[in-house]
């Protein structure tokens, strides 16, 4: 299942295919071709762009070079946004986990005796996907806007000063990120919990484990694969997100994330090397993070 993309829990028990087969290689060809065309080629192009230097003759044009200072410059210029991105993504992941885990638990375990309700609840989790991501985020902008109901109530009880608005704050951006990524957190956790053998929880109870202890020692470790997939599926896109934090949606100049900076550099400033360098840095950062995370969580520990 795609939800457990990052968990290698099933791999351990499966026998290793030893024979190198030409047929297997042949069958892999379309996939390899696809990867070269749509991943490796743009990546190389991006690397080349990121090292380009301004054309000394024509303003706004760039020539191939080995201008590695591009990286130093973007790190210096956009360090704040990078740190903010990581922080926002971490917060959103945390809140999505806080909401997604109990939700997944409820659907996967509490509703298990009622398959119809279970399917219904699952559809409700996925339902937001039927509406465009942009529209939903815009709707939240409406709800949070100065004239909107939430601001109205908060102003009337004095939490929000006159003329102040929720949109454009850290709160609204993290809220938007959390909201948009809850399904990505919930579904992988659900996938592990729905197949959790409840007899193991009974065994935990029988062996003097209180419900809390049994949750900590049995339920949580057995759903760790889902939690790991969920946090990665939330953190990675959230770190690179540029919709929620953009000024047209829930953000403001104070909430700019790395995604917004890349967008501005590519589309507005047309500083392609800077944008490319930023993109590659973001990619590298996430790769390192995922590698450390997967290693730390130890796929072996997951089962």
């Amino acid at each position: 299942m795609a939800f457990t993309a990052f968990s290698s829990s099933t791999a351990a028990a499966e026998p290793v295919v030893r024979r190198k087969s030409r047929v297997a290689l042949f069958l892999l060809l379309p996939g390899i071709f696809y990867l070269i065309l749509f991943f490796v080629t743009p990546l190389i192009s991006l690397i080349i762009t990121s090292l380009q230097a301004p054309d000394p003759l024509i303003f706004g044009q760039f020539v191939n070079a080995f201008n590695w200072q591009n990286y130093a410059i973007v790190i210096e210029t956009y360090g704040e946004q990078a740190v903010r991105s990581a922080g926002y993504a971490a917060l959103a992941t945390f809140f999505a986990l806080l909401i997604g885990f109990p939700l997944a638990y409820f659907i996967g375990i509490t509703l298990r005796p009622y398959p119809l309700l279970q399917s219904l609840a699952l559809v409700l989790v996925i339902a937001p996907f039927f509406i465009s991501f942009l529209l939903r985020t815009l709707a939240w902008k409406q709800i949070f806007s100065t004239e909107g109901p939430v601001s109205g109530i908060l102003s009337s009880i004095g939490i929000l000063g006159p003329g102040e608005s929720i949109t454009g704050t850290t709160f609204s951006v993290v809220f938007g990120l959390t909201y948009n990524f809850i399904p990505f957190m919930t579904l992988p956790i659900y996938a592990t919990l729905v197949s959790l053998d409840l007899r193991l929880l009974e065994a935990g109870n029988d062996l003097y484990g209180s419900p809390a202890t049994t949750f900590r020692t049995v339920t949580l470790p057995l759903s760790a694969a889902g939690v790991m997939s969920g946090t990665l599926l939330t953190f990675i896109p959230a770190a690179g997100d540029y919709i929620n934090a953009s000024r047209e949606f829930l953000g403001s100049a104070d909430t700019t994330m790395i995604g917004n900076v890349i967008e501005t550099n590519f589309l507005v400033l047309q500083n392609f090397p800077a944008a490319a360098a930023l993109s590659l840095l973001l990619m590298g950062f996430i790769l390192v993070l995922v590698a450390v995370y997967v290693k730390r969580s130890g796929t072996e520990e997951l089962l």
Partner: protein
Amino acid sequence: MTNNDVPQGGFAEAGADLELVGITKRFPGFTAIEELDLTIPAGSFFALLGPSGCGKTTTLRLIAGLEEPTAGRILIGGKDVTATKAYQRPVNTVFQSYALFPHMTILENVAFGLKRRGIKNADPLAHEALRLVELDHVAGRKPTQLSGGQQQRVALARAVVNRPALLLLDEPLGALDLKLRRQMQVELKDIQSEVGLTFLHVTHDQEEAMTMADTVAVMNKGRIEQMGAPQELYELPHTAFVAKFLGQSNLFSGDVVSSSSTSMVVDAAGTKIEVPLARAQRHSGHVTVGVRPEKVSLHDSEPKAASGRNVIGPGRVTDVSFSGVSTQYEVTVPQHGAITVFVQNTSISSLHRDGDSVWLSWSVDHAFGLADEAEGEPVSRFHADLDTSMIAVQSRKDLEAELEEA
């Protein structure tokens, strides 16, 4: 780490007695246990024997606290635990499905209960329990890396290591091969008597129940049909179910035609069968009586009528199966259907062959009378609008059907 509600510290000094009072368990649309009363004395090895689906597992789950009774009370060591949570009860279970924690090593599995109770040297104790089931060498492995039989032994170690006042075993030896099962039976019996724990052992294997338990209760359709020492149950079954489930039986039904101060005579399709009153549950009307196959003797010719023996015949040997120690004969007697006879192979020459004409006899003292309304439901359901001759035909048919089954 540990929880205050959980029984802390040391082990149970001795087993606790268990008392079930009027336990009923209803699932939506299905009554699994009905008005169950059961007392198991402290320190005894009690076997609950019954066919699959009769409610054995449900009974254990009720005692362990994993299921709530619809009605009734559960007392462990005199304390009412009906409202107590599973993790607070001084009870451990060996689950039929093993339920080993897949993410923990074998050692961690076995030490789980000890750690929850805050027992200091959990790991050495766990190793000791693993040595008991001869699996200490796999202590570092994960459950998926063990065979079914090994997993079952780990499940056993995981429960036994806690030395609970009451240990519930749900078919704990089902996945083991014969040799290992015998060995584990002895092992279990040793653990039980050594510490004086109370064992409630659930099984559908009558031999296992009889060899291991002090007391056996035979369960059927959510009720206990009969309870007692294994030998008592075997020699004097009270119901047709017990007579057939615990070993084999030859059953006959008919009306009581005469009775003296010590015995009664039943007319089973024309054959007079005498049963001691002390061994009969009912003394009048239409009754079912029986005898165990190994109590029946075979004769080449009609034996002389002697007081104290029931005689049936002549019949024809329809099946002979030789099993080394003994030979099992199937003798078909007109009006009585097939009767099973076990004969010890004490001499080579006396073997009867297929098609031989034989007579059967057994000592009156070995006969038993059952409590069942002769052939229960179908008969009572149809009798209302039948005349007497049809009743006779009906009960004959019932009898034949029953004998065919047996």
